[in-house]
């Protein structure tokens, strides 16, 4: 599989993991190992980056790059502050920008997200914004200098898969930065579909951490992302209404 490149940095895995919902650090550790991920996002609110033995130590031990996120923020102001604290604590300019509109749906607030993205880009951050499946907003965020765009497949933790594949295709078509399908993945076929639609990577957490066997599901996701990428590159056959004999009419 070809490398994923975000802001000039290469990753050989196209599966980005989240840590939320893991029942224990050991289960998380095994799942991360099985997923083959090289980039994993960590919520910075309610986490002391200096504490010993935390989730950050698990990532460091596996040599997985930490992508701090602003989960739990409702305003651009909170998100910018959280990103700055994360930069100071972890020494990384990268941030997964997540500004939530309400607690029930956890859908991203497009206006606050755009506002925060502009400010963070100006402040030198590598910004990866979590957004709805909105092609117009995705384009605007790219123009604003974001390093990638991360449209959702469905609400966070819902496991509903990709509800609007058409919009994801439109985002992919227009984007010249990586498109990372974020949120909504329920099982392996969802991850494969995201890659078949042309996404450059998939980010997921709950589908693995809350599975009955997280390590198995992580391994499944690894294979699915790879299979979907290869299928995308191979080019699928056109859909036909009627059968077309594959043998033995031609030599």
């Amino acid at each position, binding site marked *: 599989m070809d490398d994923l490149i975000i802001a000039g940095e290469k990753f050989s895995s196209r599966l980005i993991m989240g840590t939320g919902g893991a*029942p*224990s*650090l*050991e*289960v998380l*550790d095994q799942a991360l190992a099985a997923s083959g991920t090289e980039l994993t996002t960590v919520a910075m609110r*309610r*986490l*002391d980056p*200096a*504490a*010993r*033995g*935390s*989730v950050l130590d698990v990532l460091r031990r596996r040599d997985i790059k930490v992508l701090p996120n602003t989960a739990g923020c409702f305003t651009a102001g909170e998100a910018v502050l959280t990103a700055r604290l994360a930069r100071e604590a972890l020494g990384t300019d990268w941030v997964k920008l997540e500004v939530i509109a309400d*607690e*029930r749906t956890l859908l991203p607030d497009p206006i606050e997200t755009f506002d925060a993205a502009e400010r963070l880009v100006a402040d030198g951050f590598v910004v990866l914004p979590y957004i709805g499946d909105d092609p117009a907003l995705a384009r605007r965020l790219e123009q604003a200098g974001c390093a990638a765009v991360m449209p959702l497949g469905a609400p966070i*933790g819902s496991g509903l898969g990709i509800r609007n594949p058409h919009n994801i295709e439109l985002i992919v078509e227009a984007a010249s930065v990586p498109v990372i399908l974020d949120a909504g993945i329920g099982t392996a076929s969802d991850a494969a579909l995201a890659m078949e639609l042309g996404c450059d990577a998939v980010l997921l957490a709950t589908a693995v951490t809350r*599975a*009955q*066997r*997280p390590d198995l599901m992580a391994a499944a996701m690894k294979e699915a992302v790879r299979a979907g990428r290869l299928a995308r590159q191979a080019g699928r056959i056109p859909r036909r209404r009627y059968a077309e004999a594959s043998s033995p009419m031609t030599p």
Partner: protein
Amino acid sequence: MTGLRGRLHGPSTARHLIRIMPAKGAQVDVIVGGGVVGLSVAWRLAREGRPVTVIDPAPGSGASHAAAGMLAPVSEVTYTEAPLLRLGVASLRRWPAFAAELAADAGLGTTGLEAGGQESPEHAVGLRLAPGAPPGRGLDLRADGTLDVAFGADDLAALEELAAFMDKLGLPVERLTGRECRRLEPMLAPSVRGGLLAPDDAWVNPRRVTAALLTALERRGVPLVRARATGLLHEDGAVVGVRLEPGGEVRGERVVLAAGAWSGGLADVPVRPVKGQIMRLRSPQPLLSRCVRGAVHGSSVYLVPRGDGELVVGATQEEMGFDTKVTAGGLYELLRDARELVPGVTELEVADVVAGLRPGTPDNLPVIGPSGTPGLVYATGHHRGGVLLAPLTTAILLGEESELAALCAPGRFRDLS
């Protein structure tokens, strides 16, 4: 006095040194940590006739002070933690006898409980309230089960899936409709869609347990050194005691490290603090008759009623190092979810809010047994289960549970360090 073998020397004139030396030939066990685990270990050892000394600057003030005291291995089971379930069920079985002996030793009289019949299924524990025993006395050990309720359709579906998993494990749980839940607990919100009753789950008041343990230890003459242990004393590759702050040391044949979240700072054991904020409300009339826990739109909360009218609402889980600040957001989330489950909680008096530090391990299982270093024994890493697992921990250290001891063996983390 059976337990007193160590001698407390008077403070030296210069530096107020505390120095406790075992009498010649005596085998003093030095217990570092006076929480529910350390005190239980000290008490069991003292009952066995072993000389022990307990070290803690403020016994019973750490995680045991914050803990809700749920003895709920069945309703807390998760897909990846079957070993923890085994430990919890085994320890819950030990609780009635543990409580009865402790109450007698501490001079509390009845615990309000008696052990049930022998015809119980494998995982059933069979605690029953003694007829007429008033709740709220003694240790406030009650065994009326846990009711795990669900809100929206999503929470109910998750609960259904959990119930199927519990069936597979042979756990005794009962599926209830929303109306059945509310017949058991009329204060539950009408929006409760359904629930699971784990009839064998129990709970106890951890503050009364630590108080009773301290009384029992005092009655047995066990010395309690109110000082902070700052490090282990090593001699010829063995641990021979602990250093104290502001100065001095305690020596013994064995050091049992039961320092909870602080254990990782004293020895090479992967224990980290996991912060939990918890609040205690007070009501003139009890709102609930059993433990109620629930998922409210995916976020979980529990309510534990005490015999004295207290209602415990917990708890957050935060990776914040040794921070013990009570935060607005933490309390908001507890109250938000508790109010969804039991709307009446908003009328109650706030009696207490506190943040404690659970001793977390990478696999959420405790670390119990001999360390790799001679003279050093672990009884730590109990995470959310210190109160539940205290009786089992003492049994493992006394060699009564060799099969379960393997699950808690300190050696399992060697590749991590």
